[in-house]
């Protein structure tokens, strides 16, 4: 189908970039910044080529741009890449948010004596690992990057984070994810042992799924717990507020905006097609957890005193919606869930970045340290409100479409659940508006006048980096059809496993370089 190994390049380019940037001397911070930005821009261009070349038609091959290179034959571990509509959206989100996050953190390190090249190298390494998880079409290869990704993120939180609890947050994040990953490892090995030594995703999907029953249920749980921790779903969420609160805002945007989506992406990519019966067995429980998560996290978010932790909790509520959308098993809700993953990345990414702008100016993310800040920072306040409204899914912004689809789809399947989940929208309005009101409106906090930076509205760099996000949120809010078109074939293919006729799957095709 194509000659250029674009997907390999998507993983290799940021990885090479990470090595190059890491080797730049510490004193030459600007060189490191621009080099890193250049590499992430190059990655974005490659991703754009993939998006242009992608076949969006119904009935097109499920995985496209497939490549495969032998690695460890004894384990059927190959460097196999492939992209479907869902992965394509996630890839675009990743390559879009990464340079924006880099720009957002452009000068953040000036105040602290930390190595700038190492910071940007870690972000590039993180980008490579995240892209690899979206693109991998081999279960073990996916696992490799799923775990390896923890290392750069761990250092980004622990070494470059803020607040007294950053080490605690980094270690908690790492151990929590590692534990989930190890359960998945047992399931991965067990899958391999029980299917005659196959790790290739396409082969696994093309063959008859394993018999329903105990084994499939355990394997499903092994995978699901790892993904539920990653996502994170209630009640596996406790690491996220700590990690999101301690990470630098730009890193938090990547953490919540992209990395957490790997959990929900992987549920769609691995749990549903590989363990369809177990998925259905556990679906009511997971829907229950999701709905509890929507309401519970919203309430907890209302009570937060720290902006970054608050945004982290709002995300947990949103992941509840995504879980609801996936496990309601209707085309509308699942499509909505995938769009939600994408749109949430945009909206929450923007929200985290704006909170970062505030925190770096004020030197604190505590809500109590603000109050009436909009008077001196009108543009920033406007963007802050916009990001908040987008995150509560105001009609006209992109997240509205996805939340509507999820609830619409869920309503056709399970009315009471949809009704309870709708409560989440009201609560979302409460925490967003109240957050905005306490920080930006009302009586001006006199302490703010003593902070000169609080009088400096958005700089050109800051405006330039939020502009694409604002445009995307508005654009996809008004014209969501391209996203839906990209996602629907892949969603349909995935749901075929649940509705029980996977033989209608389109045939695989692509180049294979053994």
């Amino acid at each position, binding site marked *: 189908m194509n000659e250029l190994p674009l997907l390999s390049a998507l993983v290799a380019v940021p990885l090479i970039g990470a090595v190059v940037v890491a080797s730049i001397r510490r004193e030459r911070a600007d060189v490191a910044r621009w080099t890193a930005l250049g590499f992430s821009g190059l990655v974005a261009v490659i991703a754009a080529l993939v998006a242009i070349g992608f076949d969006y038609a119904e009935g097109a091959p499920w995985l496209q741009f497939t490549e495969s290179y032998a690695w460890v034959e004894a384990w059927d571990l190959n460097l196999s890449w492939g992209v479907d509509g869902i992965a394509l959206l996630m890839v675009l989100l990743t390559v879009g948010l990464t340079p924006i996050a880099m720009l957002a953190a452009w000068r953040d390190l000036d105040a602290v004596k930390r190595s700038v090249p190492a910071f940007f190298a870690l972000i590039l390494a993180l980008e490579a690992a995240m892209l690899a998880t979206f693109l991998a079409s081999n279960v073990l290869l996916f*696992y490799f*990057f799923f775990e390896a990704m923890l290392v750069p993120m761990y250092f980004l939180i*622990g*070494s470059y984070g803020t607040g007294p609890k950053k080490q605690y947050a*980094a*270690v908690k994040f790492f151990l929590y994810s590692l534990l989930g990953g190890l359960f998945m*490892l*047992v399931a991965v090995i067990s899958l391999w042992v029980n299917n005659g030594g196959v790790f290739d995703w396409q082969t696994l999907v093309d063959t008859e799924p394993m018999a329903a029953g105990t084994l499939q249920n355990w394997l499903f749980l092994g995978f699901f717990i790892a993904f539920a921790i990653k996502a994170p779903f209630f009640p596996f969420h406790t690491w996220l507020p700590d990690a999101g609160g301690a990470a630098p805002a730009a890193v938090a945007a990547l953490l919540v905006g992209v990395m957490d989506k790997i959990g929900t992406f992987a549920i769609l990519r691995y749990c549903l097609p590989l363990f369809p019966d177990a998925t259905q067995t556990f679906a009511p429980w997971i829907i229950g957890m999701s709905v509890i998560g929507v309401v519970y996290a919203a309430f907890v978010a209302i009570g937060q005193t720290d902006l970054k932790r608050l945004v982290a909790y709002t995300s947990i509520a949103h992941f509840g919606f995504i879980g609801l959308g996936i496990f309601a098993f209707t085309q509308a809700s699942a499509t909505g869930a995938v769009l939600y993953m994408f749109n949430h990345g945009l909206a929450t990414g923007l929200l985290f970045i704006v909170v970062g702008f505030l925190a770096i100016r004020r030197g604190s993310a505590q809500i109590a340290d603000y109050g009436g800040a909009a008077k001196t920072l009108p543009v920033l306040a406007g963007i802050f409100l916009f990001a908040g409204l987008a995150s509560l899914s105001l009609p006209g912004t992109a997240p509205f479409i996805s939340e509507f689809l999820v609830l619409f789809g869920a309503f056709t399947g399970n009315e009471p659940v949809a009704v309870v989940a709708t409560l989440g929208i009201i609560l979302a309005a409460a925490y967003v508006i109240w957050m905005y009101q306490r920080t930006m409106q009302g009586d001006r906090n006199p302490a703010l006048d003593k902070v000169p930076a609080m009088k400096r509205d958005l700089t050109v760099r800051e405006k330039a980096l939020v502009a694409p996000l604002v445009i995307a949120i508005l654009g996809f809010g008004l014209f969501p059809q391209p996203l839906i078109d990209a996602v629907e074939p892949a969603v349909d293919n995935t749901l075929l496993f649940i509705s029980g006729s996977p033989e209608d799957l389109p045939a695989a095709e692509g180049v294979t370089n053994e």
Partner: protein
Amino acid sequence: MNEAQQAGLQIDWAGLAPMIIVFVAAFLGLLVEAAVPKGRRLVVQVSLAVLALAAAFAAVVLNAGKNSAAFEIEGVGIGSVVLDGPGLFLQGTLAMLAIIAVLLLAERRTTRGGDFVAEAAVVADSAADKAQRREDGATEIFPLTLFAVGGMMMFVTAGDLLTMFVALEMLSLPLYLLCGLAKRRRLISQEAALKYFLLGAFASAFYVYGMAMLYGFAGTVDLAGINQAGTDSGQPRMFLYIGVAMIAVAMLFKAAAVPFHMWTPDVYTGAPTPVTALMAACVKVAAFGGLLRVFNVGLASSAWDWHLILTVIAVATMLGGAIFAVTQRNIKRLLAYSSIANAGYLLIGVIALGEAVGQTMFYLAAYGFTVIAAFAVVSLVRDGDEEATHLARWAGLGKKSPGTAVVVTVLMLALAGLPFTSGFTAKFSLFTAALQADELGLVIVGVISSAILAFPYLKVVVLLWLNEPAPDAPTVNLPSPMAGTVVAAGVAATIILGVAPGFLLDIVDQASTFLNT
């Protein structure tokens, strides 16, 4: 000789060559001590040891593919030394690891005159002791090491319990002595040596008693014969139970499994770090090589009798090692408990029997290289003349010595079993084999233990990178050519076996069948 030939005894000299080379070099080393002037002994001893081990490795490679007994009468093998896939693979692994360990023993840049004293028995802190600390260290450590390594090579190829016992003693005695030779902290070092010796002697007694029991049961000390007797023998089965238990106690002691692990933290801490590295890597290979052979060749037929108790020990070892590792504040003790936990994972491979022999050997090789490099780094981080083993002293090492900190981070992530390191490939292949042998429960415990164990490793990484260094932070002794080579080799092996393990997986796959199973 003539009588032997008349009796039709054929000896496979080429097959015995690796051991012969090592032992001859060890004796030559003793002669060197007498004949070569003091100033040149170090160079001569190190070159002799390295060349001998390299030659032994080459001889092992030339023997590859053999599957026979080294001694045969009338074409029928007698068990004493068996040259089969696992034996040869482990001999090769031992030779490789020993070369690296010898280089570490030879490091003189970190402490003037090396990390060793000449006489272990001098009363600690007496005038004579203080005097000998100012002198150059003993070069007898190299022949001692060669004797120990020769014993290990014999241990992994021993086909009957008696040969195995001789090998066990041969590998143990030099190690007891080596443990007591540390130049710093003499008292702890002597305590370590004494403790290791007394408990080791106790374990040996267990071994001999168990051997007698098994002889009573089977009428032979030959492993294959014991296996045969497991199904045929008319003797009371109680002899078998006691014999297996006693032999297992002795070997599990060497392997540092819970509850026979008590010596490990103290000895690992008290022994000179290069000797600790030798023990953590090579003794582990030898001990598990022996365990694999005894249980696969000698006791497979009675698997039902020992399966449960060995499972309990494996679980206790995995969890105990990991949990105790969490609270350690000394890097050597931490690595000691981590080595106990790793013994637990390796026991899974022993319990899984034939399915997991190759994977267990792969794990041994992968772990050996990583742990040698880890101890080599420990020997480089120093407060003045002494190693800074207290973890608090390592805080902020990433700021002052980023290179060393990166190395430690890689090693810690490998020990934690993260992908792209040998730690992952080793665990993955071992757990896969165990699942194929239906040992799901052990694998789950192994995974939980790995998760617990990740915490102390991560604590080290946190200290290195996220904490501020103390004003009088330890220095990293670089360049130290010998120890530097060791670290480089260990890290290279850790990464190569993590990224491209295919070649070694193929080798262990071909070398995974014992003779007579």
